[in-house]
């Protein structure tokens, strides 16, 4: 599956000069020319190592300002690291941030030629690709207007279209999917999947965990300029989301200290039949959801669970009132409940279990708590769940 290393980073560190004053500028200029001397700087990246092999897809996640874009720029060759080694092989196409490497004063069509020339294509070679690019971008007559008059979505459309036509060996994209509209995003994700199936290599930076999970097998989490985690996309994104969850919780503590006068799910977790907390289940195993709900008036709330696949497709959901279940009081306006799924029928994949707290009448929905889990197994079944069925000999008529 994976071939030779296309990208190899070792000990990559990037310092940006601090240019607050004119004196800083001059001092930096002199030290650059003579090749030594102290330069006022701040550190954007520190000691990053990464290897991407041909055919791999690697996601890059992290908070705003963590250094993701700088890292991508270093790999794309736009920025030279202060320290460390960067080896990049093959034809690289990079869609870095908005603008995607287009010249704002050039028209869309001129930018196509420019981007092609950057990739080393002659004008004649580029001309043979222009029509396909314009068709993919689908921005109509705007193609002959300067890029600076484009909406950000249109720029990304064109950038993506150019990347698709140039068929790079390594494609670097920095948060470009987020800008396109729904149908264009779908088109892009589809194209990316085809590109990856065809042996392409992808480095995707995104804040959409869904895109990272669906498109990337491995993920690097950059935190304050350092590599915080690297591994299977699902593990890393979950860790990352947990981090945010915790951060939000600690940020929101003062507000949450006042108990809201609304029903909510106070805690929820997923465990197996023996009561051990787990996030991975084999198909057919038993899965138990445990939770504690809070109801300000001390009346039993209605709880609703829902299971959605990682891509957002709803699988099944049901309120506790439907089964006539009433959560029992567990002291101080709290109510414990559990939902048990014997012989899990879900097909292998990633799922999210959502729990919602409703008022005792089951009319208003107040809170959502999500837990992710994975179902593993080897099967050629497709769809969402395994339905009970039996094959039998048929009759001719």
């Amino acid at each position, binding site marked *: 599956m994976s071939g030779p290393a296309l990208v190899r980073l070792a000990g990559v560190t990037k310092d940006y*000069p601090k240019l607050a004053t004119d004196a800083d500028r001059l001092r930096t200029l002199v030290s650059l020319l003579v090749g030594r001397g102290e330069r006022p700087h701040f550190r954007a990246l520190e000691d990053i190592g990464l290897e991407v092999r041909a055919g791999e897809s690697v996601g890059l996640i992290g908070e705003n300002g963590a250094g993701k874009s700088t890292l991508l720029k270093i790999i794309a060759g736009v920025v*030279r690291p202060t320290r460390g080694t960067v080896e990049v092989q093959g034809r690289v196409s990079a869609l870095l941030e908005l603008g995607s490497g287009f010249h704002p004063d050039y028209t869309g069509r001129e930018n196509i030629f420019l981007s092609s020339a950057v990739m080393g294509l002659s004008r004649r070679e580029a001309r043979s690709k222009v029509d396909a690019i314009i068709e993919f971008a689908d921005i109509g007559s705007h193609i002959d207007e300067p890029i600076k008059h484009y909406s950000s979505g249109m720029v990304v459309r064109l950038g993506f279209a150019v990347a698709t036509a140039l068929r790079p060996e390594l494609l670097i994209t920095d948060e470009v999917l987020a800008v396109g509209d729904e149908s264009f995003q779908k088109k892009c994700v589809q194209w990316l999947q085809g590109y990856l199936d065809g042996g392409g290599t992808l480095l995707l930076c995104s804040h959409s965990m869904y895109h990272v999970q669906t498109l990337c097998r491995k993920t690097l989490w950059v935190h304050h300029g350092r590599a915080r985690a690297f591994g299977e996309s699902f593990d890393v994104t979950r860790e990352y989301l947990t981090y945010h969850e915790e951060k939000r919780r600690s940020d929101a503590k003062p507000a949450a200290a006042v108990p809201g006068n609304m029903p909510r799910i106070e805690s929820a977790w997923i465990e197996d039949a023996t009561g051990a907390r787990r996030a991975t289940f084999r198909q057919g195993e038993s899965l138990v959801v445990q939770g504690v709900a809070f109801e300000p008036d001390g009346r039993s709330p209605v709880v609703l669970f829902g299971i959605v696949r990682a891509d957002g497709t709803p699988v099944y959901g049901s309120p506790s009132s439907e089964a006539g279940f009433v959560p029992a009081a567990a002291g101080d306006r709290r109510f414990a409940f559990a939902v048990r799924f014997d012989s899990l029928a879900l097909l292998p994949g990633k799922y999210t279990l959502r729990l919602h707290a409703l008022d005792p009448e089951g009319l208003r929905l107040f809170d959502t708590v999500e837990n992710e889990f994975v179902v593993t197994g080897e099967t050629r079944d497709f769809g969402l769940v395994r339905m009970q069925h039996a094959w039998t000999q048929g009759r001719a008529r």
Partner: protein
Amino acid sequence: MSAQRSQTLFGHRWLLYELTRREIFSRYAGSAGGLAWTVLQPLAQLAIFAFVFSQVFRATVPPAYTGVTYTGFVAVALWPWIMFSESVQRGMAAVAANAGLIRKVALPCELFVYASVIACYAIHLAGFAGVLVVLRLTGENIRLEGVPVALLLMVPYVLLATGVSLALGSLHTIVRDVEHGTGLVLTIVFYATPILYPITFVPEAWRGLVMANPVAHLSERLREVLLTGPSLTGSDLLVTLACAAVFAAGLWTFRRLSPYFEDFL
């Protein structure tokens, strides 16, 4: 150093072509006159100089140049100067002007400087050729056989312009004062160069200093070649070497600083 940055100039020939082409066509995009302005501007400049110096100051053409009016005398040195000064100004600003691209795409930044310089020379060489033809038709003694040698003399001139552009451009990217200083220095150099006057008008004591400037030498020589016939001297070789050295120094400075451009743009 990543793989992209170190690609050769040859590997980027299509990009250079694309940038130059765009540089030429965008020059007067949005203006009705289009490329005509590129000729009109120097023509107007020439007309002003010709009027002020030959009519007001009563400047005369030295006897060595026979069959030439003051207009022809100035034109053959003025046009190459315009190419030089304009390409320095544009080449110097090229990196900053293309910041959007440099920050997003891995390509050698030198290309932007080269494209600017080449575009300037391409446009004004065409204009210059037209002006020479017109002067000749109006009876000025332009020696057509001098044109090939004049083109040869343009080579060190271009090297000089490129070297200065590279050096100033890389400094300008980091310290923006350079742009303002350059305009001033170019004006001084223009009047310190025998373009509006022959070198023989300069007091003997100053002549050595004035001619130490390669632009002065090249202006004088271009005039000689175009107005009195082709010739090559040993000092031409010397000036060529000096211009090549300036180019090398400019390229060294540029390559030294270009990895850091992104930090400043």
